[in-house]
């Protein structure tokens, strides 16, 4: 296994379950496996053996090759600041009133924090397989563009424009309001805020060199990764999955497979309902068969269009959370088992 396995897709389609299932499957084959997860459902978290945010990789008591860690984007951010900024500046940054805002509201930041963690664990060379359940940021694709975006935010166009090219000293920052365009911003926001934000951005700028070289390394991991796109057969996540196929080759690699979660058995489409079947049961099968047919059309169209292997994960009334049934998901899906 050369690079990490990145499990992507729209929110709510079952990325976390798929990541966990892959991890269990790999670990059961004796591979040292780490799954890095974000916000799992409670039962799944306890099955994986991680129940606190920000936890360091922990080996599963029932399956020692299986390690799991849960990402806490906000805490990771503090780590990033401390890693890339001088200590006194890092202190100022993490206590700043703007720090929380930029970590929570800049959509790429949570993705970046996850990507940097991923890179750390891959480089640790302690695991044969690192599986990343990517954060459900809007657009999903941000996980891949985040390193670039963040480097640009901190060192790029906006800040250069504000400061006029070179890194200014603090005194120059206070003169920002003398520039005509900024005078108007000043009028809008009040000079006090402008000054406070400016010095925060100035501090943030000190992380630029570190972030930039780290971003390059992270992108190298992306290029070596195996990307899986998880979706259901509903129109919105399918559209989202299509976006991954269009955009991903430029920033990472073309997805290795698309995983259709909540798939219904295709044979339901062709069943002759036996005589004497209770009417509600017959009606019920007809409904689900219609849905199975719709799903199959969606899958066929997708795989024809993007020429990609399709894995199917069966719809179950409750998402599986024990190790056996997680493992079975991968074994039954065909394509996924071959990836490991």
């Amino acid at each position, binding site marked *: 296994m050369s690079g990490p396995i990145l499990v992507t897709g729209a*929110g709510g389609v079952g990325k976390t379950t798929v990541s966990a299932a892959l991890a269990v499957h790999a670990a059961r084959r004796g591979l040292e496996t780490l799954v890095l997860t974000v916000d799992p459902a409670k039962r799944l978290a306890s099955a994986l053996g991680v129940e606190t945010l920000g936890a360091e990789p922990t080996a599963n008591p029932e399956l020692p090759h299986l390690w799991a860690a849960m990402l806490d984007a906000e805490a990771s951010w503090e780590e990033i600041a401390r890693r890339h900024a001088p200590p006194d500046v890092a202190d100022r940054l993490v206590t700043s009133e703007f720090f929380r805002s930029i970590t929570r509201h800049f959509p790429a930041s949570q993705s970046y924090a996850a990507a940097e963690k991923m890179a750390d664990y891959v480089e640790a060379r302690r695991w044969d397989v690192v599986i990343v359940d990517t954060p*459900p940021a809007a657009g999903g694709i941000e996980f891949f563009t985040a390193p670039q975006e963040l480097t640009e935010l901190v060192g790029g166009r906006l800040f250069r424009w504000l400061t006029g090219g070179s890194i200014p000293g603090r005194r120059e920052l206070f003169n920002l309001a003398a520039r005509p*365009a900024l005078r*108007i911003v000043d009028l809008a926001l009040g000079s006090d*805020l402008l000054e406070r*934000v400016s010095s925060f951005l100035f501090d943030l700028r000190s992380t630029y060199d570190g972030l930039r070289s780290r971003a390059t390394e992270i992108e190298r991991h992306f290029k070596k990764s195996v990307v899986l796109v998880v979706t259901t057969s509903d129109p919105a996540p399918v559209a989202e999955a299509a976006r991954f196929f269009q955009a991903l080759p430029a920033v990472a690699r073309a997805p290795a497979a698309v995983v259709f979660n909540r798939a219904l*058995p295709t044979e339901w489409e062709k069943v002759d309902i036996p005589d004497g079947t209770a009417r509600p049961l017959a009606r*019920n099968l007809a409904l689900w068969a*219609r849905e199975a047919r719709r799903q199959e059309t969606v899958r066929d169209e997708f795989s024809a269009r993007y020429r990609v292997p399709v894995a199917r994960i069966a719809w179950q*009334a409750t998402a599986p959370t024990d190790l056996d049934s997680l493992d079975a998901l991968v074994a039954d899906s065909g394509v996924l088992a071959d990836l490991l």
Partner: protein
Amino acid sequence: MLIVTGKGGVGKSAVTAALAVDAARRGLRVLAIGMVEGQGLAGHLGVEKLTYQPAEVRPGIFAMAINRPAALDEYLRLQLHVPKFSRIGPIARAFDALASAAPGIRETVTMGKVLFEARTREWDLVVADAPPSGQIGSHLRAPRTISDLVGAGRVREQTRWMEEWLNDPVKTGLVIVSTAEELPAIETVETLAWLEHEQVVDVASVITNRTLEPLGASVPADVSAPIGAAAALHDGIFHEQQRWLATLPDGPRLPYLFGVTGPVEVTERLADVLEER
């Protein structure tokens, strides 16, 4: 005005479109606003994409999408009275740079546009396909965040009417869309608790999407044959849903739509159910 939120993947855009269609069927003049790029509102209204200028997408329904540069430009001119002159680009860029660091500013620009449209009185109803519930708090709280953060300046003056408008239950209601599954239900309950605490907006309704009817028979003993397997799946999902529905407040329940392919058909079918209520 209705602001529609919910956990990602629950069908916010479909419900937003259905609310618009339902209102239009009752003769109201409706504006549907997509607040987040890439959400499926356009598709559910049967158009390829939405523009910043409201356009009539079907009789009685106008729709638009907020794009940040356009909204910012308009905000600077109309709300902050920055004159339109050739340097609006640099100003907007500077503003945007600051807005990425200062909490509440981007959200104020986006919410400001929605509220501004609601205030024009050109529409009987404005429905906004809002950011997911994970981010809705910062949008709803944006006016207050800014008045806490900024001592003076025009942005602060602007936030006062926004806060009042959001706070007024006659003018603004929040619709939370959920499904009867673990994570969406938990997030809905958490959002409700946050709203109870913050009191920034009135909750008009919690709509649960994709709910199943009871099977209406008992599950056969043989669950390997399709009849039994489909019954067991249905019954299993139904009971799992009941468990999460019990944690949610009462509100409209929209059905799971079996075999429906097109996003517009989804909208129509959901609007039919809303109309029956």
